[in-house]
């Protein structure tokens, strides 16, 4: 198979510039890349590393406001940077295909899946409509989509996220390309769905001997998918090696820190005293949106100075529980107790002091901070609202809070949220919650929009604050690694019900509830054989074999 080893894509000294503040700034600083036929290369790095930009440049494409300023991109003997627009267009979709991060946003809502699937084959005159439709159904079957005969004739909004992501992989396969760019294809999915998609992608890439660039920020995922891994940092290559070698023996300091990210682990705390009153009690709470019941008899306790992690897939009712506790969504049954006393169900009926005691930190710090207000005002507002402090006193208090979240007050007081990084914005979100001097903070997926290193910093900060201020946290997350590092108690939710709860140590040790087990075992591990072993264990036969049988 000499042909398999032949070079498909060569990128040399690629430099890409982005236009901002009325000048061109280099964002990719001379990256080289060689990809052979049938090979999968993982591009990994934090946000801003230039992964997606490089991936798109491999198709000879740059987003609006970006340009390739230097270097060559040679695909199968053709130089893409100097090719004409129509030459490049002829390659796209037919010989190089793209799978986007959010299939839900990348399928056109106005057309049926099948029409979008057959668009490229028809456009590039590879198949007729009928042939392409038949092929699509075959691909849907191979990718284990339910009702392969029929699913293509639905609109994107009628299909779930995980299924859409597989349909998009099928669409990329429509013309049997030589190369597929996967741009974070599973980042938006739940862990349990992620496994299905990963397995589907890996097997179909294998079957058709397609080369791939697999872009992700998740090391454990890339370990399952890639033959080789290239680590990027701020538009520069850090290092590149075979997957196993890279995992076992990373050379560069930066790579080692990436690998070490999941190491943060807090010392276990002693269990709460038997007679201690829980700070917050959720007792038999049920809630509904309209006629749809979304919470069913949910109960758990949160003690002072402790963290309860609420885990589950999207739609399991985690955030709804938080809405019930804060009074944004009055429950239809059950009650919320604070320090042993029943809270009024609607936030409008609660006293200022009751409101002050429970604060929230949100997932998207971007949208949770008023973009027109300065940091000082954002943090000062709740202080003024709850304690009535103004003037120099207020300024002093804001400075204290900025100190607490480890941001230098004189540097940040007068800045706008847009001038801060994602991690800094999340720190401001924390300071704003602290400003009310609460006893209890709900953290709703506070680290899931952040890079691992930054996320770890936030977790350490939250832990420190908990120790200093004896705070209770309700930590909503779908990331079990986060749970491992910070939780005292774990509540597992599914479809609005609590399926299992208990102290962390007990929860992470078998035997588990069936669903907890599924969640736990679905979290990708760094071992490159993890996915294969898991699929064997679960008895899911290889998708390729299934397709061959049918």
């Amino acid at each position: 198979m000499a042909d398999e080893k032949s070079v498909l894509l060569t990128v040399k000294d690629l430099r890409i510039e982005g236009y901002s503040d009325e000048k061109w700034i280099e964002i990719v600083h001379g990256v080289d890349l060689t990809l052979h036929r049938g090979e999968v290369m993982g591009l990994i790095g934090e946000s801003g590393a230039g992964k997606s930009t490089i991936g798109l440049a491999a198709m000879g494409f740059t987003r609006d406001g970006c340009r390739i300023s230097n270097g060559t991109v040679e695909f199968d003997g053709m130089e893409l940077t100097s090719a004409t627009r129509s030459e490049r267009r002829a390659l796209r979709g037919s010989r190089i295909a793209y799978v986007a991060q959010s299939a839900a946003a990348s399928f056109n809502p106005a057309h049926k899946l099948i029409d979008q699937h057959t668009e490229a084959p028809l456009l590039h005159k590879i198949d007729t409509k009928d042939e392409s439709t038949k092929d699509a159904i075959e691909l849907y079957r191979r990718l284990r989509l339910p009702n392969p005969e029929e699913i293509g004739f639905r609109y994107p909004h009628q299909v779930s996220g995980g299924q859409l992501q597989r349909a998009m992989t099928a669409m990329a396969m429509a013309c049997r390309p030589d190369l597929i760019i996967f741009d974070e294809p599973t980042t938006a999915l739940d862990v349990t769905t992620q496994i299905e998609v990963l397995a589907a992608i890996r097997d179909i890439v294998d079957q058709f001997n397609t080369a791939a660039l697999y872009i992700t920020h998740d090391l454990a995922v890339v370990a399952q998918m890639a033959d080789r891994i290239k680590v990027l940092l701020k538009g520069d290559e850090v290092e590149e090696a075979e997957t196993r070698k890279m995992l076992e023996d990373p050379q560069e300091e930066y790579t080692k820190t990436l690998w070490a990210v999941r190491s943060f682990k807090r010392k276990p705390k002693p269990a709460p005293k038997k007679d201690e009153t829980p700070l917050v009690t959720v007792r038999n709470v049920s809630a509904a949106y309209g006629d749809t019941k979304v919470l069913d008899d949910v109960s758990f306790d949160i003690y002072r100075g402790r963290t309860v992690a609420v885990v589950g897939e999207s739609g399991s009712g985690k955030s709804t529980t938080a809405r019930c506790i804060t009074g944004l969504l009055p429950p239809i049954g059950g009650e919320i107790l604070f320090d042993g006393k029943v809270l009024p169900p609607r936030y409008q009926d609660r006293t200022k002091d009751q409101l002050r005691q429970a604060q929230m930190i949100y997932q998207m710090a971007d949208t949770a901070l008023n973009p027109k207000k300065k940091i000082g005002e954002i943090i000062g507002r709740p202080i003024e609202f709850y304690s009535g402090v103004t003037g120099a006193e207020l300024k002093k208090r804001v400075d204290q809070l900025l100190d607490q979240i480890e941001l230098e007050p004189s540097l940040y007081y007068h800045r706008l949220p847009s001038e801060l990084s994602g991690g800094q914005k999340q720190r401001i979100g924390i300071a704003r919650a602290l400003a009310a001097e609460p006893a209890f903070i709900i953290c709703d997926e506070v680290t899931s929009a952040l890079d691992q290193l930054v996320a770890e910093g936030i977790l350490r900060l939250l832990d420190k604050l908990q120790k200093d201020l004896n705070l209770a946290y309700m930590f909503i997350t779908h990331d079990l690694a986060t749970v491992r590092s910070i939780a005292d108690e774990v509540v597992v939710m599914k479809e609005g019900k609590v399926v299992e709860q208990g102290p962390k140590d007990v929860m992470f040790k078998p035997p588990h509830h069936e669903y907890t087990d599924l969640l736990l075992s679905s979290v990708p591990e760094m071992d490159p054989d993890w996915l294969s072993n898991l699929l064997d264990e679960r008895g899911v036969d290889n998708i390729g074999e299934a397709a061959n049988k049918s």
Partner: protein
Amino acid sequence: MSGVMGLIVKRLGLGLVTLLVVSIIIFGAVEMLPGDLAQQILGQSATEETVAQLREDLGLNRPAFVRYFEWLGGAVQGDFGVSLANNRSVAEQLAPRFANTLFLAGLAAVIAVPLAIGLGVMAALYRNSVFDRVANVVSLGAISSPEFFLGYILIVFLAVQNQVFPAISNVSGDMDFGTRLYRSMLPALTMTLVVTAYMMRMTRAAIINLLASPYIEMARLKGVSRSQVITRHALPNALAPIINVVALNLAYLITGVVLVEVVFVYPGVGQLLVDSVTKRDFPVVQACCLVFAATFILFNLIADVGAILSNPRLRHPK
């Protein structure tokens, strides 16, 4: 589809309620006009007795709400009462005029809608090019000038200096279609100039708004050409705002026609309305206003329903 039908029925009900409210406002406004109607009709020389007699005949002595319900009851059955000026049935006078107005509006729409959407798509495709800018400046110029002014300019160029079309659009029922078309052309062009800009700019904006969407990038990465990206991928998703602005402009073509009809002496509802106001022929004024209001509400309804139908999430629920 039951969900969509429900929405449409709800919108229809709301439209009827709006129309009812409007009818009260129209009736109330005419009621509040200064002066006594019987006195107006009979003139200064009338005696007290004849005025009182006429008031009795017209039923003006009865309370306003009784007369309102009588008028409304008649209007629902298509009977708008009798003209004070010539004692002919209002409906009879209004019907051919309304047909003329619809013809003119229809002609303007047939020219303006495809033109505007076509230009809007082109402007989005070649955005920031010379074409885009020229189209923008011209359409903004047209939008900023009052329609009677545009009408006179067209008369100067196309009727006086070049004599392509007649300056006076006196159509009548017995004309053949070609002649009608020929005579209505100038007012139709005037109105086209006025409405095209709105629709074109909305089409352009709605499409450009979508060009940053991931699915547009996806289409480009599948090798779809620029023009097809816009027509196949952006336009279908931009339909809701476009349908809205088109429907509102169609309503404007019918209801905003008054000035244009007067300039070209076109025998439509607008002309009738202006004549009736000068003659203080209130039943006709009321009827014209109600017809305009109904048209406006109807087109708003069409806009709503069109926007609903253009959304696949509503057409094909899970």
